[in-house]
C-alpha cells in the first residue's frame, strides 16, 4: 500500500533558518496523523509543504505515490482547515462551502446541494445564508471543515484548528473530528502544540523539535516510551532523570523518564527509596500533583484525589518500580 504522504530527506530553509531539516515521514492512507511540537518546531511548515504553499529546498514529497514538488496548491487534491479558518468575508456560508466546487465549474444547483450536505455533516444545516462574521468561533471552525470536506480531498490538513476554541467546545470538536475521520476514511494530518489533543485524537504522532522529527509512534509509545529527553519533557509531565541518578537504579549510565503517576509518596523510612521533601501541592480535581525535591532534582508525582497527603515541607520517601524507569536513546 502506498503512503498517503511521504517525505524523503525534505528540508525547507528560510535564509539561514532551517525550518524543516532533512525530515523523513510516512503517513499511512486513512490514518489520523498528528504533528506535535512547540511553536517554531517546523510542524506547520511541514503541513504547508504538503498543501503546496511552500516548496522544499531539497528532498522529495509524494502524495499517494505521486511526486508533488513544483505542483501548485490548486492542482493538489489536498485541502486545508486553516488555523484562523480563512473564510471568505464577502461570501455567505453556502458560497464559502461551495467555493471549491464553484472554481471547478460545477453547476449552481449541484454545488449548493453538496454544500448543504457538507453543512449537515458538520451539524450546521440551514446556516447557508449567513455571513462568516455572524457565526461564533466554533461555528466558523465547522464551516472551514465543511468547505474542505466538500471537495472530497485525498488528504485533509488541519492547522491547529481547535486552538481558538474554549475548552468545552474543544473537547466536543476533538470527539467529532475523530468520529468524522473514522466515518469518511480520509487521511487527516493534524498540527497541534497541545500534547493532550495529539495523544487523544491521533492514530500516530510525530514529535517535532528544531525542524526535525524526534519520534514517531502511537500515542502510547510516545507517552510510555519517549525516545529523547525532549519528547519526555514535551509530551506530558514526565520526570526526566539524569544518568547519575538512573545508574543507581538501573545500572546503566543513561537518561531516563519516569511518569509522575509511577511515583509513590510515603512516610519517611530511613534507608529505603529516595528521601525527598514536599515543596508544594497543586489540586487538579481528580488528582493532586505534588512537587518534590530529591537530591537536588525537582520531581512531580500525581496521587489520586482523597489520598492522605503530607504537609508542605515534610520529609517523605519516594518509591517506584524499576520497570517503570524508561531508559532513553540519548547517552550521558
Amino acid at each position, binding site marked *: 500500500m502506498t503512503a498517503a504522504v511521504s517525505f524523503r530527506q525534505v528540508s525547507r530553509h528560510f535564509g539561514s533558518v532551517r525550518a524543516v531539516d532533512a525530515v523523513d515521514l510516512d503517513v499511512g492512507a486513512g490514518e489520523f496523523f498528528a504533528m506535535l511540537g512547540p511553536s517554531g518546531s517546523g510542524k506547520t511548515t511541514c503541513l504547508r509543504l504538503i498543501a503546496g504553499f511552500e516548496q522544499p529546498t531539497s528532498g522529495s514529497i509524494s502524495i499517494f505515490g505521486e511526486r508533488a514538488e513544483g505542483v501548485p*496548491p490548486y492542482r493538489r487534491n489536498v485541502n486545508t482547515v486553516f488555523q484562523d479558518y480563512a473564510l471568505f468575508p464577502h461570501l455567505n456560508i453556502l458560497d464559502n462551502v461551495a467555493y471549491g466546487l464553484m472554481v471547478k465549474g460545477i453547476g449552481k444547483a449541484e454545488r449548493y446541494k453538496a454544500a448543504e450536505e457538507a453543512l449537515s455533516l458538520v451539524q450546521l444545516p440551514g446556516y447557508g445564508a449567513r455571513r462568516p462574521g455572524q457565526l461564533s468561533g466554533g461555528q466558523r471552525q465547522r464551516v472551514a471543515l465543511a468547505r474542505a470536506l466538500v471537495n472530497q480531498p485525498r488528504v485533509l490538513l488541519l492547522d491547529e484548528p481547535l486552538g481558538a476554541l474554549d475548552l468545552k467546545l474543544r473537547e466536543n470538536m476533538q470527539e467529532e473530528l475523530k468520529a468524522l475521520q473514522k466515518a469518511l476514511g480520509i487521511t487527516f494530518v493534524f498540527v497541534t502544540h497541545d500534547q493532550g489533543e495529539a495523544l487523544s485524537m491521533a492514530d500516530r504522532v510525530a514529535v517535532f523539535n528544531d525542524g526535525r522529527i524526534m519520534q514517531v509512534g502511537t500515542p502510547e509509545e510516545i507517552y510510555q516510551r519517549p525516545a529523547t529527553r525532549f519528547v519526555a519533557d514535551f509530551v506530558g509531565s514526565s520526570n526526566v532523570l539524569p544518568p547519575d541518578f538512573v545508574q543507581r537504579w538501573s545500572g546503566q549510565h543513561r537518561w531516563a523518564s519516569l511518569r509522575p503517576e509511577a511515583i509513590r509518596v510515603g512516610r519517611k523510612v530511613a534507608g529505603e527509596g529516595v528521601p525527598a521533601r514536599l515543596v508544594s501541592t497543586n489540586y487538579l480535581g481528580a488528582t493532586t500533583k505534588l512537587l518534590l525535591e530529591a537530591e537536588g532534582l525537582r520531581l512531580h508525582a500525581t496521587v489520586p484525589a482523597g489520598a492522605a497527603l503530607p504537609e508542605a515541607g515534610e520529609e517523605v520517601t519516594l518509591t517506584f518500580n524499576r520497570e517503570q524507569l524508561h531508559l532513553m536513546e540519548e547517552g550521558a
Partner: protein
Amino acid sequence: MTAVSAPVIEVRRAILPPSGGVRGVLSDAFWRKPTLLLLIMLLPPVLWLGIVYIGSLIALLAQSFFSIDEFSGLINHELTLKTYGDLLQPANVDIIIRTVVMAACVTLASIVVAFPIAYYAARYARGRWKALFYLGVMLPLWSSYLVKIYAWKLILAKEGILNWLLAKLHLLWVLDAWLSLPYVGGNSLSVSFTGTFIVFVYVWLPFMILPMQAALERVPANLVEASSDLGASPRQTFRTVIFPLALPGIVAGSIFTFSLTLGDYIVPQIVGTSRLFIGQAVYAQQGTAGNIPLAAAFTVVPIVIMGFYLWGAKKLGAFDAL
C-alpha cells in the same frame, strides 16, 4: 536563619485624589462623560463643514433656481427651472458629455495603471521598498500642480521630448496616425484630448493608488492561500477573492479620480483643445459671463452624477466588504 523584619511600606490610599488644578478636574469629567469630549472635538469641524461649506453649497444650489435677465444681466430672484432649460441646450449638453466621458476614461485608465503598482506595494513590498513606494507616489503631490501641468505641456508639445523620442525610435508615424484620428487627435498631443487625458491620469493617479493599496493590504494573505487550496487558479483567485475584496478601495479611488476630473478647469485649459469642460464652463459663466445661475446649474451636474455613481456602486455590492 536571621529573623526577617517586617518591611516598612508606606500606607497608601486605595483611591488617589484628583491631580492638581483644572486639568485634573477636566480629565475626570471627560472620563466620566466621553461624549462631552467628543462634542468639544467635533464642534469646530462640524461648524466649519455645516455652515461655511454645506451652507455655501446650498446657497449656490439655490442660485441655480434663479434666472438671469438677458437684457440687463441682472439676476431675477424668482424660483424657476429656466436655467436648467438653458443647461440642456445642445452646446451645454456637449460640455457635460465631453466631461463625463473624459472622467470615465481617466478613471478606467487610472484603475488599470494603478492596480499593478498598488498590488505590488500591498503584497510584496517590504521595508525599504515600501518606503520607496510611498515616496514615489507622494512625491509628485509635493510639487505644484500648475508646474506639473506646464511641464506636461512641454513634454507633449510638437517640439517636446516625446516627439523627439518617438522620432529617434522611428515611431513618429504611430503618433501621427493617432493624432489624425477624429476627436482624440489634433495638431500635437498638447492640443488634443489625448493630451488632456494623459495629464489627468498623471495628476490623479496617486489618489487611485493609495486607497487601492490600503484595500489590498487588508486582504489577508491566507484568503489567497485558502482559495488556491480549494483549487482556484491564480486567475480565479484574482476574480473571486482579491478583486471583490479590493473593490471598496477601487471605488474609493475612482470617486477621487472621477470627481476630480469632473470639476477640474485648469488641466483642460492648459493642455487640450479649446472645447470646454464643466469646470471651465462654471469658471466662464460665473466670471466673464456673470451668469451665476447657469454656473450654479453646471455645478449641480457633477453632484448628481456622483450621487448616481455611488448609488450604482452600492447596488453592485462595492461596499459589502467594508
